[in-house]
């Protein structure tokens, strides 16, 4: 016999709620995606590309925003005043870690102010790694005569995905 004092959802006389069920299913789907990420390299690769704004289409990238990713992956960035390889003496000592979405260093308010207020060209290198997979991306921020910058993705990127 059902205990009438039971507060569990299953024992209440259910009034069907499709909205509730859809949200629960949506959360379940994201949870499965997250739990599989360490074991299925394709999911991790997809997520690393998302972090570097390298998802093939904007809409696919945008559709992933509800997936929570607080302090995910080991994300590093490096900002240089010269093109990569131009100054041989610069070693890798100026790498810093970013908490998540390292490409935000370029466009978010503090990074944009710190690195781009000089109105001179800058080169950004981003490197994210997760369980042996590494994605590296290079961006050239070209100063425009009328102010602001043009972001150019540099094709030669190293990755071991």
């Amino acid at each position, binding site marked *: 016999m059902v205990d009438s*004092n039971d507060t569990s*959802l299953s024992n209440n006389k259910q009034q069907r709620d499709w909205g509730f069920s859809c*949200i629960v299913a949506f959360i379940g789907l994201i949870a499965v995606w997250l739990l599989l990420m360490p074991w299925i390299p394709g999911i991790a690769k997809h997520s690393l590309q998302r972090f570097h704004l390298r998802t093939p289409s*904007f809409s696919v990238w945008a559709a992933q925003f*509800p997936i929570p990713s607080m302090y995910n992956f080991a994300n590093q960035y490096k900002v240089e005043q010269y093109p990569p390889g131009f100054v041989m003496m610069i070693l890798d000592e100026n790498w810093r870690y970013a908490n998540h979405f390292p490409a935000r260093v370029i466009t*978010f308010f503090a990074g944009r102010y710190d690195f781009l207020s000089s109105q001179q060209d800058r080169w950004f290198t981003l490197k994210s790694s997760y369980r042996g997979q590494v994605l590296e991306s290079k961006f050239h921020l070209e100063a425009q005569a009328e102010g602001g*910058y043009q972001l150019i993705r540099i094709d030669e990127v190293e990755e071991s995905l």
Partner: protein
Amino acid sequence: MNRITLAFQRLRSAGIHRPIAAYRLVQATILVSLFWKWEFFLQANNIYANIPVEDPFFPDWLRSITTIRLAFWGSALATGISLITSINLLRKTCNWLGFFGITLMCVHQGSYNDMTFVTIWWCCLWSVWLSHRIDTDQQELLMLRAAFLSRLIISLILLGGAAGKWTPEYWSGEVLFDIYFLDRDFWVFNYLRDNYEPEDLQEIAKWYSRQIIVVETISGIGLWALPARWAALIATIILSGVVILSNKYLVSVIACLIGLACVGFFVPRRPRKAATNVNLALEKPAAN
């Protein structure tokens, strides 16, 4: 009629409508989260106007300063109205507007995937769902579902944090050492830097990082399965701990989640069986 229904009737006659109280608490904490970002918004407003970055990855309107202004202010205004209004249609409309505005913030070039907007987005989704059901006559069932959904969302967000940290760089503490221990100006890290040598700090960073991974993993996997009030209490402690031990900027990320966690406190206590038998004989309907 069960005891929970009786409890609801007593509270309603005393003027307390639990789903609306829970709903308003979440709206208030969404506003706290948004306005904790006030400095971000002011600076971003200025910097984005003066240093535009043209990136073809984003559509033009999602790089526009106008979009971010409208989205931020629109969301704040809509949430403020939804907090105070008692007109159901207006409440629903404002929740949809807030939800839409925060969705824009989550994909705009100048604010994308900022965790503040992601956590607010989940709270807005919960609010939209609840605002469409708040007039139901099955208040106790609604409250149970609202609390279940709230802890499911918090579990997911914690799981999202954990899954991305299941990597050697976090287990060794290397990442958080660089982000927090090296130069972050916050009381706990200032204290540690003042009192420990760099090699000790690396060891502390390792265990600091590991406890985060363990707590996020356990709560991400198991929080949703706890009883409502226990889940609310544990989530509130964990989330408050994140702010106290990490940095003050996380208040904007966490405030709305604490509000969402507190929804569990609005679920009436389950009466004990022993007490139930005694009370059933003694109890009369409360006058107020």
